[in-house]
């Protein structure tokens, strides 16, 4: 067996290769993106692979492939499963023939997300099996089982790693790669695939009848297991079980939950052998609720009585605190350690030369007192520039803008949305706004790529996930087809142009769309675009601070003068805003 030091997502991707996956699709989202990024980077692929335009589209594609009998993987982040929830719920009724694994990666602590929802609740809701790995090795080992379970029970299986699995690393034992060899064939069966009321009522009953056997099989598979060591017990799930194992004292029993639904009979037997139990899991009290159902008079400690938090991620330190408080650990082995206070923060920031910064600057200049709904992407960082007033979920900039515009609010409404997000779920909102006569301006921040999650191509890029050229969608034509009359494409590096077009839009009524188009500065650097750096003439610089307030990480300020550092990518926007023309291209003066 080969051993490699791999990122959790790389190990998951490798396990898909070992499982002979035939069909792969998904929409990028941290922390899930590297699974498909790894699979699309394979030199030889015996499987079909695509980045889909959103998670609903992805899941429906994967479901259909699994109906045709092939093994399909569909990846997304937790909030992506909200978008895909519609097909998910009914796919449990229709079931599958080929294995269908839906990877929905949770993000406790919302490292890179808008909420901390728990995918396990969806699995419970849809009544499909869910696997919840505790380590990178287990994440790898669960994948072949996930496909087997899916085929055995004819149900989609949800695989739910968290950030600390996806973006953790470890030495992982790998198996041999198996080429996907199945050929899809659709067998017509309306009673299975056409969910009219008469059919779906029967399918719902069948789904419920599958449940007891699933619970038993998950215990047999060893995902849920225990060790009796004393009169008290800790029950933990997912990554939290790794933290518990690091701290577990002698004489305390341990149960590890890695799969749902949990066999209640088996669980109750374990719980009743103890005088008290503590449940440790991240996010929702999914395990704890089941434990409480079967505990009888055995006291249960957990979230519901205030011993563990409902929110945030756990860590060895947090688990030690919980165990000590609940009386399962005599002495916390970790001494509190003092954080150095009052250091200047270093949050993520738009790159030097990012096209969004120029666009935001111009928006703020033209629409001084406006409402700025925005969306999910790098440009959410426009918050630091005071040009992001709302974000809620993918595509919601345009819909929130039209809602505000129709509410009676009299100020201008200018929303921003990235190209990938616009194609994901922005178009419907635009069509709706035009149809219903909203007065608003939409700025599509078009950097030709899905940048935030690692530069995945989208229909706007002109390349498929596998690097094959494909006709790029015309954002201009899409907007016009939605009924927008004012559609202008500008280069946000050209501040004058950008400002002029925004002023023109401000004068008009109805829905106006401005496409601020320029390559992502990271893709440009990778493509070898060289623009030359800019520099400040310290004699001419008056130290007014206009360029510093622009917020570019390439601009510093010392001794009452601005200075441009080596991060400069040559976008030249600062040179256009300097009131005294002190910023020029290096070597030009």
């Amino acid at each position, binding site marked *: 067996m080969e051993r490699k030091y791999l990122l959790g997502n790389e190990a998951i991707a490798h396990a898909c290769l070992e499982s002979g996956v035939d069909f792969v699709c998904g929409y990028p989202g941290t922390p899930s993106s590297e699974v498909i990024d790894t699979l699309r980077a394979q030199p030889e692929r015996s499987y079909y692979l695509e980045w889909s335009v959103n998670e609903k589209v992805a899941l429906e594609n994967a479901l259909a492939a699994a109906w045709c009998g092939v093994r399909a993987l569909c990846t997304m982040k937790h909030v992506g499963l909200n978008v895909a929830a519609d097909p998910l719920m009914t796919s449990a009724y229709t079931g599958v023939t080929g294995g269908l694994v839906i990877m929905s990666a949770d993000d406790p602590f919302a490292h*890179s997300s808008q909420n901390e929802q728990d995918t396990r609740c969806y699995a419970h809701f849809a009544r499909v099996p869910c696997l919840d790995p505790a380590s990178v090795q287990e994440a790898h080992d669960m994948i072949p089982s996930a496909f087997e379970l899916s085929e055995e029970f004819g149900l989609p299986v949800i695989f739910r790693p968290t950030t600390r699995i996806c973006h953790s*690393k470890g*030495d992982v034992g790998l198996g041999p790669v198996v080429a996907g060899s199945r050929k899809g064939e659709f067998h017509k069966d309306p009673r299975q695939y056409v969910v009219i009321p008469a059919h779906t009522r029967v399918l719902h009953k069948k789904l419920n009848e599958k449940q007891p056997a699933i619970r038993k099989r998950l215990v047999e598979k060893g995902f849920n297991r225990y060790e009796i060591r004393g009169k008290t017990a800790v029950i933990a799930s997912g990554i939290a079980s790794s933290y518990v194992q690091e701290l577990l004292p002698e004489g305390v029993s341990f149960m590890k939950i890695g799969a749902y639904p949990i066999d209640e009979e088996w669980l109750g037997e374990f719980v009743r052998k103890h005088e008290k139990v503590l449940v440790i899991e991240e996010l929702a009290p999914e395990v704890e609720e089941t434990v409480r159902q079967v505990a009888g008079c055995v006291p249960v400690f957990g979230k519901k009585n205030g011993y563990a938090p409902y929110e945030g991620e756990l860590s*060895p*330190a947090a688990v030690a605190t919980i165990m000590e408080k609940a009386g399962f650990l005599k002495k916390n082995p970790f001494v509190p*350690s003092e954080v150095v206070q009052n250091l*200047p923060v270093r949050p993520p920031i738009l790159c030097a030369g990012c096209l969004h910064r120029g666009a935001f600057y111009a928006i703020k200049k033209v629409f001084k007192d406006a409402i700025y709904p925005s969306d999910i992407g790098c440009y959410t960082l426009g918050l630091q520039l005071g040009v992001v007033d709302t974000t809620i979920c993918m595509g919601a900039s345009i819909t929130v803008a039209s809602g505000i515009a129709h509410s009676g609010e009299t100020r201008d409404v200018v929303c921003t949305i990235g190209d990938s997000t616009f194609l994901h779920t922005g178009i419907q909102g635009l069509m709706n706004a035009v149809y219903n006569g909203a007065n608003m301006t939409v700025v599509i921040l078009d950097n030709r790529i899905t940048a935030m999650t690692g530069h995945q191509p989208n229909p706007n890029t002109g390349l498929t996930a596998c690097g094959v050229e494909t006709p790029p969608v015309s954002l201009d034509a899409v907007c016009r087809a939605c009924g927008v009359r004012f559609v202008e494409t500008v280069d946000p590096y050209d501040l004058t142009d950008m400002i002029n077009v925004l002023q023109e839009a401000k004068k008009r009524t109805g829905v106006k769309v401005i496409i601020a188009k320029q390559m992502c500065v990271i893709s440009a650097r990778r493509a070898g675009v060289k623009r030359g750096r800019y520099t400040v003439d310290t004699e001419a610089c008056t130290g007014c601070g206009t360029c510093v307030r622009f917020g570019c990480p390439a601009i510093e*300020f010392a001794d009452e003068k601005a200075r441009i550092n080596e991060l400069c990518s040559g976008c030249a926007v600062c040179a256009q805003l300097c009131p005294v023309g002190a910023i020029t291209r290096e070597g030009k003066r």
Partner: protein
Amino acid sequence: MTGSYDILIVGIGGQGTILASNILGEACLIEGRQVRGAETHGMAQRGGSVESHIRIDGQYGPLITPGQADLLISFDLLEALRYSHYLKKDGKIVVNRHLVLPTSVYTQKLVAPTEEEIIAALKNHELCLLDADRIATEAGSPLSQNVVMLGAASKWMPLKPETLLESVKRLVPKKTIEINAKAFGMGRVAGGKN
């Protein structure tokens, strides 16, 4: 407590902390040892403060607990101070003598400590301070800074220097093997190898 040797590598997104952590992970594999790691991806990467946890001989979770790290390797002075609470009492620091002021200093007028103040504060721990940029440039490329840092830190790591060097050779781009091998050696000298 669990017998792992815990290293925290910190810096600013884009400085090469991930390659440095991969080199340590690969070195553990070469020596047939278990290893766990955790790192920053996604939104947090864009020029923000980043951290990589590496637990040599780690068997459990990937996260290092504050107050428990054996070694802190920092690509930036301010980040060294920000994460210094992760070190145990007798933990060691290897830090690049380089200070990038966060943009917040300019845009929000926040006050940053000076180089001297930071160094004085870090001296609570055994400290190895080096100019990795200069050494890397001397070795042939400023891009080999992360390997210089690993070279300097190698004296405190429970990994054989030969293994680390082999791992560097396996993981850096082919064309740069020679420069990086040199950078590792020069880093070791700068660190005052034991």
